[in-house]
């Protein structure tokens, strides 16, 4: 549950204002309608909201540890003697999305559950399931074994082609918000998706 600051710029100016008096700072000086009065303390209960806004903190671990992976979602690949399992695990420990050759739906279509075809298909299926579940970026430590293992390389390429980015976005810190000189707006809530799409279209057109 993320308690977002009160909707000051957008809606709080019309708080409790349905007393019939016109708002002083109204652009059009219309009398308020019934929809104008809203709750001054709005709470967005979506537990994934803060992660999607890049404001949730990633678990920091202990600072004397050699390496502390900081992530919201981690990619886990398990290759056992008989099966291959790909999982996306949340930092709280829940396995959110998984694809395994143990599942009958996948196993019945594979000649072998441990070869390169199997691992590539597991990658494709995992990518599709992640996109359907609203996960587009995952943290992975498989990059270092990409050169040594063909299977891991194929798995990661199947995921990337499927639409999952193997690098998670960083958390927006207070330092980034209070910059004295901003050459261009860089924070997600200042840059809208429409503007980015328009820029991309113009670049593609050129």
């Amino acid at each position, binding site marked *: 549950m993320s308690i977002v600051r009160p909707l000051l710029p957008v809606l709080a100016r*019309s708080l409790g204002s349905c007393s019939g008096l016109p708002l002083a700072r109204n652009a059009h000086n*219309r009398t*308020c309608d019934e929809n104008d*009065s809203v709750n001054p*303390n*709005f709470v967005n209960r*979506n537990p994934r909201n803060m992660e*999607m*806004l890049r404001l949730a903190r990633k678990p920091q671990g202990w600072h004397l540890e050699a390496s502390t992976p900081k992530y919201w979602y981690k990619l886990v690949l398990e290759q056992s003697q008989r099966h291959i399992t790909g999982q996306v695990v949340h930092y709280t420990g829940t396995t959110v999305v998984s694809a395994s050759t143990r599942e009958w739906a996948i196993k*019945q279509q594979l000649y072998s559950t441990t070869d390169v075809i199997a691992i590539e298909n597991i990658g494709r299926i995992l990518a599709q399931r992640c996109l359907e579940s609203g996960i587009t970026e995952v943290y992975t430590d498989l990059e270092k074994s990409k050169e040594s293992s063909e299977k891991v390389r194929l798995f990661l390429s199947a995921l990337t082609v499927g639409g999952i980015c193997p690098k998670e976005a960083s958390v927006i810190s207070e330092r980034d918000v209070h910059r004295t000189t901003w050459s261009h707006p860089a924070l997600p809530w200042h840059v809208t998706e429409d503007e980015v799409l328009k820029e991309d279209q113009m670049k593609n057109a050129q």
Partner: protein
Amino acid sequence: MTRLLLTSHKTPLFQPFRSVWQNKIKVNVYPSLRERLEELDQTRDDPGLYAPVNIGFTRPKPSRREQLHTRLQHRKSLKENESLQQRSRRGDQFLCLTLAEHYGIFRDLYGSAYFVPYVALGITYDLDDHTVSPVHRGNTIKPGEAAREPSVQFRSEPGDLWTLILSNPDGNLLDNEAECLHWFIGNIQGNDLTSGDVVCNYLQPFPPRGTGYHRLVFVLYKQERHIDYSRYTREQPCVSLKDRSFSTSTFYREQQDHLTPAGLSWYQTDWDSSLTHFFHHTLRLNPLEPEPPVVPFPAAQPIHRDLSSWERRDLKRQRLGVGKY
């Protein structure tokens, strides 16, 4: 089914340790993180009261031995054939269940209850003839794409009756504990949505700017018999936020004898530039003045170099708010 952790909304008074008398000596007990988290759990005192209840359907389990036997025969034949087939499109109900808990769907809709969605819902928003935005388990769809009613498909016997409700547990701008109702169709015969009674007409999602991502949840209920929804019917078209305030738990408690939830699907939306027009014209909210740009350190803004030295000094003093002396 892991128990849903009910945490209190108020942070309790933090006590780093408790004192306990042992053999006439006062000893400090420092509870571990696990013990502290258990203390926060409201359901610890009476687990029976808060135990999650399955309100959905249960299916009889087929014999595992027979299942394994047939599957083994199939795999053996596959090994002999060495051929690959088309990928199957069977939905996985238990994957949906884990994700629904991860997104807090059951917690915000029902509280302690949950259900296993055995009916696969195929919901798509048609953008044009070639493109559709499907709704699965939490994918992002912009409000501009969801402006019109989606097409809803599911497998059903012709005689069955269904109810479809689309609600936004994060989108109620009046009450934080209730949801905003976006679509309510009751007494749907078979899988033909046009045959149902429209209790509340479809309204596109409208997450206000700055509030982040809202969840929009489709729940399909199976009805035992025809239900009279006249007490829930809103006058159409309904654009009043107060009328659209809805609580699934209250509604389900009233209708639980006749309804069983069977299908579940949800997506996430956030603000879109098309919503400005929607807020001003459809919801009839008063348009606001544009926000003044936020300058982080106003005193650190550059000063024009053509100003004379005393003008520059005065400007700096003005910005810092220096007093008379």
